[in-house]
């Protein structure tokens, strides 16, 4: 394939993806910092005080992005896992493995910030409500995926076992997303509720979107960094890995 089209199968080899990921990584870090700075500025200095929740509502600016990412990363992880099972490409398993810890962190942050928001507004850190419980299950699915992969010595078999777990667990994502509709929950419905004056809701929405973009870029940068490490760990027997400039031998 030399007709100018990106050769995806060539990119799917760890050897060719390693330098590409290395080149992309700094851009995503820069974007994460940029969006984060803008998002934090709006979160604290532009977005006005909420009429009912006072300053406490500002937790939304980290809670919603973390929750979105926890669900989205799981979908991406399951997609890579599925591709790995179907096409038997080695990089897919590494991508799924690289995504899991960041996804678990996002699920944890979602639960943590949720607890810190629930305490002042609902009067409790935790309640066994459909939204909270299904998010907790998502956190456990990530931990299960990581533990299962760590427990199997052969990385290719670990990829396959992990992929099946990831795919089975996908059923939980729509349950989290629709839990506030399907069940009578304490958790509020839509997070982007525009019940206040439009100009007010607008700045809150912008703050949330910028913070979400920051979390996105952070997750991508983190995944690229981790997949590069995993590639080196799994390819440590190869000549090319040992001859890399950064090895410096």
């Amino acid at each position, binding site marked *: 394939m030399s007709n100018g089209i990106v050769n995806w199968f060539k990119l799917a080899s760890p050897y060719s993806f390693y330098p590409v990921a290395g080149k992309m990584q700094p851009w995503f870090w820069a974007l994460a910092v940029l969006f984060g700075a803008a998002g934090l500025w709006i979160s604290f200095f532009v977005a006005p005080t909420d009429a009912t929740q006072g300053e406490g509502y500002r937790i939304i600016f980290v809670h919603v992005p973390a929750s979105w990412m926890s669900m989205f990363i799981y979908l991406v992880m399951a997609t890579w896992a599925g591709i790995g099972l179907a096409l038997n490409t080695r990089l897919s398993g590494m991508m799924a493995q690289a995504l899991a810890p960041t996804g678990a962190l996002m699920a944890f942050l979602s639960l943590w910030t949720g607890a810190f928001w629930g305490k002042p507004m609902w009067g409790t850190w935790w309640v066994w409500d459909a939204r909270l419980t299904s998010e907790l299950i998502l956190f456990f699915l990530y931990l299960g995926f990581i533990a299962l992969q760590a427990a199997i010595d052969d990385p290719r078999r670990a990829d396959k076992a992990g992929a099946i777990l990831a795919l089975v667990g996908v059923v939980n994502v729509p349950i989290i997303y629709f839990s506030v509709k399907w069940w009578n929950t304490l958790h509020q419905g839509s997070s982007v509720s525009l019940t206040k004056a439009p100009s007010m809701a607008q700045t809150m929405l912008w703050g949330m979107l910028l913070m979400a973009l920051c979390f996105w870029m952070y997750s991508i940068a983190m995944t690229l960094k981790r997949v590069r*490490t995993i590639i080196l*760990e799994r390819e440590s027997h190869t000549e090319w890995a040992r001859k890399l400039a950064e090895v410096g031998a």
Partner: protein
Amino acid sequence: MNWGSPAEFFAMGGYALYVWGSFGVCAVAMLLEPILLGRRRRAILRSLRRHAIADRMDKESS
């Protein structure tokens, strides 16, 4: 601007514990994760360097 003074900003209208508890833990987690991963990366690079040196010594002695 929402805040009259820095003290007012840090007090967060009485929600200081909850707001800073949320933002603080997020910030710490998102700083710690890349640092820990950096350690893991340096560890594999060290191991690769040792292997590369061993390879070279093998070739020289044979």
